[in-house]
């Protein structure tokens, strides 16, 4: 049994099945089952890769190593919890009259196909296919963002499509240039876009072309990561789409886009002497971090605020990978994981909180701890975790990034500390009255799924206190690969 094939086949078959059968009473369960299958397959695949080392699939079309298998597992896991969460959440939305039956069907099938495109993007060995999968992921999520068909959601989806379309076109240009550089070394064998072949000859790639190519790739995929100044689509898409979509956009899609940049950075680093790619990423990362931190304090919409928080963390992670070296890469990977888990947990909690209060405006959400202590605590703990409070895993990774920056790039430390401080003040000051305070909201028709929130937070807490040795080994290996 090839677990890799299963990992890819289950979501696409699930997506098609959900399209065909339509919205039935058991469709949410089918959605969960498909996600569970994907997760199990990916978990077994992970075990296999950890035990036997990297391998190819379908000739050299797909390549799974310790770097991407870790993202595959993470993606499948968050996909599973999101599908669990979205069951009751979407039913509540339906009861509130926000969604019709055909749209629920669209949502479920697109969700699975979106998972499929992300998994393809993560596992493909061909940088061209990587681009195709990223574009496909954009297309599926455009439909998901505009699911409510309100004026605001249409606007958000349009902006998302146009901005990411433009961005991803830049990435295609970068890919073309990369292919051009590779073809000069590898010849016209059709292997010139295969990452495994490229990485062997990365020292021979023409630096001029690679520099230009990397700029285009960084700007292009960076648009999808949400790097400033092309981050404008991200808050809108997160705020106006359904909450499960916000959770996967923030927790997964941004990671996948960043993963694409990382793969390209390895090549660019090999070809261009002097850390050109790293400096560029550090610059973009720092800019993004600062911009997002200062926008955070001005937010009124809760999902928008946490979307800006995602931008902020993506900036931090980009900065970490830009610094490079074993420690920073390790910290970057850890932070990506922690951010995925925490941010999706927060969005789950926020989704229920907003549903309960009937609004996303933060000044109208009050006293969550009274109506539903579980959601209230979930939101509070999640917020503390994302802000980097000590027992949680985010603290560990942020601490590592900061200390590494202090040691190797001291000039950046004040900027980092300032941005993190501003973000802390902004988010905490707004979440605190939402959790505590007076309220008079009605109970929801369907009991919310709280488990995913706490599973995620428990994992984050665990990693903050104790990282299992196999996980450390795994991170180390991936960090070493990134150079």
């Amino acid at each position, binding site marked *: 049994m090839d677990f890799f094939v299963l990992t890819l086949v289950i979501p696409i078959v699930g997506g098609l099945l959900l399209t065909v059968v339509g919205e039935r009473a058991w469709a949410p369960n089918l959605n969960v089952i498909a996600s569970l299958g994907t997760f199990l397959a990916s978990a077994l695949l992970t075990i296999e890769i950890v035990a036997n080392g990297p391998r190819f699939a379908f000739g050299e079309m797909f390549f799974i190593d310790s770097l991407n298998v870790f993202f595959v597992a993470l993606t499948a896991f968050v996909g599973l919890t999101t599908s669990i969460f979205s069951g009751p959440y979407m039913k509540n939305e339906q009861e509130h009259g926000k969604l019709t039956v055909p749209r629920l069907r669209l949502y479920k099938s697109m969700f699975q196909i979106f998972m499929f495109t992300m998994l393809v993007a993560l596992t493909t060995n*061909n940088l*061209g*296919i990587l*681009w*195709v999968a990223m*574009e*496909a992921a954009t*297309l599926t999520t*455009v*439909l998901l963002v*505009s699911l409510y*068909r*309100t*004026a*605001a959601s*249409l*606007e*958000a*989806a*349009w*902006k998302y*499509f*146009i901005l990411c*379309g*433009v961005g991803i*076109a830049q990435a*295609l*240009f970068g*890919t*073309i*240039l990369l*292919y*051009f550089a590779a*073809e*000069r070394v590898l010849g*016209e064998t*059709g292997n*010139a*876009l295969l990452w495994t072949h490229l990485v062997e000859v990365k020292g021979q790639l*023409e630096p*001029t*072309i690679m520099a*230009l190519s990397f700029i285009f790739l960084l700007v292009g995929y960076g648009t999808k990561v949400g790097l400033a100044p092309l981050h404008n689509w991200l808050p*809108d898409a997160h*705020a*106006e789409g359904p909450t499960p979509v916000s959770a996967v956009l923030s927790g997964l899609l941004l990671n996948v886009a960043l993963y694409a940049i990382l793969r390209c950075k390895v090549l660019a680093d090999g070809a261009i002497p002097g850390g050109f790619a790293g400096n560029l990423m550090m610059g973009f990362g720092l800019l993004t971090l600062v911009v997002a931190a200062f*926008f955070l304090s*001005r937010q009124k919409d809760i999902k928008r605020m946490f979307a800006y928080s995602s931008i902020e963390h993506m900036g931090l992670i980009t900065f970490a990978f830009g610094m490079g070296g074993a420690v920073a890469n390790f910290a970057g990977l850890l932070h990506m994981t922690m951010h995925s888990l925490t941010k999706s947990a927060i969005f789950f909690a926020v989704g229920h909180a907003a549903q309960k209060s009937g609004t996303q405006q933060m000044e109208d959400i009050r006293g969550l701890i009274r109506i539903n202590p579980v959601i209230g605590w979930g939101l509070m703990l999640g917020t503390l975790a994302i802000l980097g409070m000590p027992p949680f895993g985010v603290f560990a990774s942020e601490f590592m990034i900061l200390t590494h920056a202090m040691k190797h790039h001291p000039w950046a430390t004040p900027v980092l500390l300032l941005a993190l401080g501003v973000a802390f003040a902004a988010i905490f000051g707004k979440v605190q009255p939402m959790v505590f305070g007076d309220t008079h909201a009605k109970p929801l028709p369907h009991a919310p799924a709280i488990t995913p929130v706490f599973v995620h937070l428990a994992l984050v807490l665990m990693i903050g206190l104790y990282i299992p040795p196999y996980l450390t080994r795994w991170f180390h290996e991936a960090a070493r690969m990134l150079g």
Partner: protein
Amino acid sequence: MNLAVPLSSQLINLFASVILLLAFAMLAQRRVLALINLFALQGLTLALSTLVVAVTTGQTHLYWSAGLTLVLKALLLPWILHRLVRRLEVKGDVESLIKVPTTMLVGIALVIIAFNVALPISQLSNTISRGTLGIALATVMLAFLMMITRSKAIPQVVGFLAMENGLFLAATSATYGMPMVVELGIALDVLVGAIILGVFFFQIREQFDSLDIRHLEKLKER
């Protein structure tokens, strides 16, 4: 120096220039239907230039991509857009947010930038069509400019598709095209994207009774 340039290379250069010319014509065009026709013409020129490269180099997959370009960009997408315009009853002129002559001047500046960026790279290339890389980049940037300056949905989409044309030209000029599987994937993405946008137009119009993107300016930082 020019005497050594083979005829095929001259033809490719000519077609590339025509593509650039059409990009400018699209930038200056004020009517929606004429804009779509120009886009179709650009697709046709692109297919022709790819065909010339294919005939000269004898690369089989380039025949395929030339055919694909012809069907998709010169026939299918313009047809879809025409239908959309008719179904949505889009009338009148395309409005530009910036005056057309100003846009043209910006366009010239972009072309100069693009040429300068591409020059060192195209000198490294040894394809017969290397000179057109700068033109391809310029086409991409001009399409980008068109997306920025137009306020209606359909011209923005035409700009988006024209950008894809420029990228395709870049792929053929620098490297004789991407591997077949990638090109098929890109073509599929473009097609699906165009269809999704078509669906989108109806949703936008249902919501706003117009395809003016200026309605879509509610979400911003205050």
